[in-house]
């Protein structure tokens, strides 16, 4: 399955690993912050709705 990368295997694999790691990290952080703020905003809006009747 793995192609023969010859003497440059370490360079190619490390370039892919670092890049994919950074991209996955960015996506995960963006999704986590999005979910956290969505929940926090919903809580505050609900609280204010109850307070204001």
């Amino acid at each position, binding site marked *: 399955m793995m192609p023969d990368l010859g003497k440059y*295997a370490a*360079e190619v694999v490390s*370039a892919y690993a670092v*890049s994919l790691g950074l991209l996955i990290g960015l996506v995960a952080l963006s999704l986590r912050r999005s979910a956290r703020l969505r929940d926090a*905003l919903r809580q505050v809006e609900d609280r204010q709705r109850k307070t204001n009747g």
Partner: protein
Amino acid sequence: MSFWEFANPKRFMQLSSRLLPWVAGVSLACLLVGLIWGFFFTPEDYRQGSTVKIIYLHVPAALMAINAWLMMLVASLVWIIRRHHVSALAARAAAPVGLTFTVIALITGAIWGQPMWGTWWAWDPRLTSFLILALFYMGYIAMWEAVENGDTAADLTSVLCLVGSVFAILSRYAVLFWNQGLHQGASLSLDKEENVADVFYLPLLVCIAGFILMFLALVLLRTRTEIRARRLKALLNRERMA
């Protein structure tokens, strides 16, 4: 539908919630197809060996590192001229994405450069202007975090974005301005002689499409988050004042 409808945060949230799943889905599909095609099903280059496979990450990341800043420039100009908050927040949302692409371009470039040039780094015009672009991204993000007032932060970062645009443009054209250094010219060219070979070209185009759509999806997602953060801050301030 007018472009300026996006300037209304409520309308932006409605439109982006419909767009986001499609853009993210197509982006993921393009990235998977492009990277698998490039990594597993393309041959080695006769001179560069298997390191040519790094092109599928390095070129799209470098392309988007520059274009992300140019998108931030347009959004900053919209903020300066028309004072639309969504545009300032979209610029803020794009910066960490652009920085990540810049870092990927620098790291993959160093990894690729070591076996081909015999060095991880050289003070070559393109490499140096890319490093300065990364520093501008960091400064831009830090300025947003450092200034408490949102409108003031948007004003200051917009000016920084205008200044940094010189380096974004320089990163693209440095190779042409100064005909020296190690970095080659553009990988993609309308000139058949200059362009990469067809066998590498198609998967590269698919990867570029994937990176562009990924950038768009992340900016939509992160702009939605920034709009929510701004509303949350306003509601909490109102609560404190009451």
